[in-house]
């Protein structure tokens, strides 16, 4: 099992979600986060004074998937969230030791 963590543009969330659902993904967790990458924020203006918005608003989505699904899922996120401009985000994949469904006590792939 793997945990896929993707940082994407807020406006990309809807297309990513629907594409993942079509591919059979059963659930995901989404949060509003802020961060910066190589671009290091961007300048803004207020009353004639420039200032830097260091942290950009992003969406972080997390989903646990079976090993067999990992390539498909990351491919979907990468294509759907891509604009080609700086700031498209990143996908992290890490191995997942265990999963437990709280309601039933199921574990492992059954619980995903």
């Amino acid at each position, binding site marked *: 099992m793997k945990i896929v963590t993707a940082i994407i543009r807020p406006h990309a969330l809807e297309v990513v979600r629907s594409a993942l659902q079509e591919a059979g993904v059963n659930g995901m967790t989404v949060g509003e986060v802020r961060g910066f990458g190589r671009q290091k924020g961007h300048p*803004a*203006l*207020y*009353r*004639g*004074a*420039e*200032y830097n918005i260091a942290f950009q608003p992003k969406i972080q989505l997390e989903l646990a998937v079976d090993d067999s699904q990992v390539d498909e899922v990351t491919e979907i996120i990468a294509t759907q969230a891509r604009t080609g401009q700086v700031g498209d985000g990143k996908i992290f994949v890490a191995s997942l030791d265990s999963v437990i469904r709280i309601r039933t006590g199921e574990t492992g792939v059954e619980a995903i």
Partner: protein
Amino acid sequence: MDTMVIEVSYALDTFYFLMCTALVMWMAAGFAMLESGLVRSKNTVEILNKNALLYGVACIVYLLVGYNVMYPGDPVSSVIPGIDFLLGSDNSVEAVTAGGEGAPYYSSMADFIFQAVFAAATMSIVSGAVAERMRLWPFLIFAIFMVGFIYPVEGYWKWGGGFLDQLGFQDFAGSVVVHMAGAAAALAAVLIIGPRKGKYGKNGEVNAIPGANLPMATLGMFILWMGWFGFNGGSELKIANVDEANAVAKIFVNTNAAAAAGMVAAALLSRLMFGKTDLTMTINGALAGLVAITAEPLMPSAGVASLIGLVGGLVVVLSVVGLDKLKIDDPVGAISVHGTAGIWGIFAVLFTNPAATFTGQLIGTLATFAWMFGASFIVLLVINKIIKLRVSEEEEMEGMDINECGMTAYPEFTPEK
């Protein structure tokens, strides 16, 4: 004239005056929204408290003594007004229906309440400039002196029939008497308390401190704009005949035209200077147009009124940037909007009102500035000696809301700064 006609006309003029009063009173809401929108969320409750309480203090003090200082029954001289308290009785039916030149044509109570909301507006100008760092109660103590004494003395010089009025100083609804006067007091306060922490860097850089809620600031602009119809329109003091009704309508047209032109001009200049259309400049531009036309909203044609507003809108953008260069920190631009645009407005009268003279306008502006700035500076210094005007550095970083008011504006959101 028929007694019945006189009575109806008295009733109409009074009614119109009271409606204008309600509009000007509503400007308190405009200032509250504008100022709370342009400060950070950690200072929202405090600035709202200031706006609410300064209105209350101003009304109490102006009723108690301010009105009588500004319009003394028996002035000491053309510079020193008299002192008296509370209000006299209203006009009798006999005095009104006697007719003729000297007969009162609207309720003197209506006159008081109209003047009272003007006094409150003058004080509202100060609260924006000192936002985010001047403590609440020292500010309210200053409001007592400002509305009870400092502003009424200067108001007496012009509108109470004092020496500036005798000199031929022309200021219809108060570009200088109200707006620049408020800005001069604000400048004195800002110079004493200093800029917000972090506003100006060591190497002379100007740091932006963006306001928390620009929708609210924009609402504030529109409320002030609406209130201004009462501010300028009411200052005609009369509506109940064809000429006066036309005059009031023209003032509405000119007031609106100046605001519209000032707003667009400021937005365009902001776009040219900064490459972006800064909403806070758009807002300040509309208000600067309004302040500029206030000195003479009746004489100019709508086209000329637009030009006066337009220049006001340009002047305010340059003034905001210029004051920052001088390290005079004014979070909402009150000194630029009411002071700089007010001075432009008072000299623009020279182009439209033949009764105005350069000397008259100059002396009026200088005398008003010197008094408002000087008297405010001294009173504020004394208050500062007894109780500090400014919050401590820690309190400032943590926010005025928790320290002064014990609450936050949006307790269900996590504060980020």
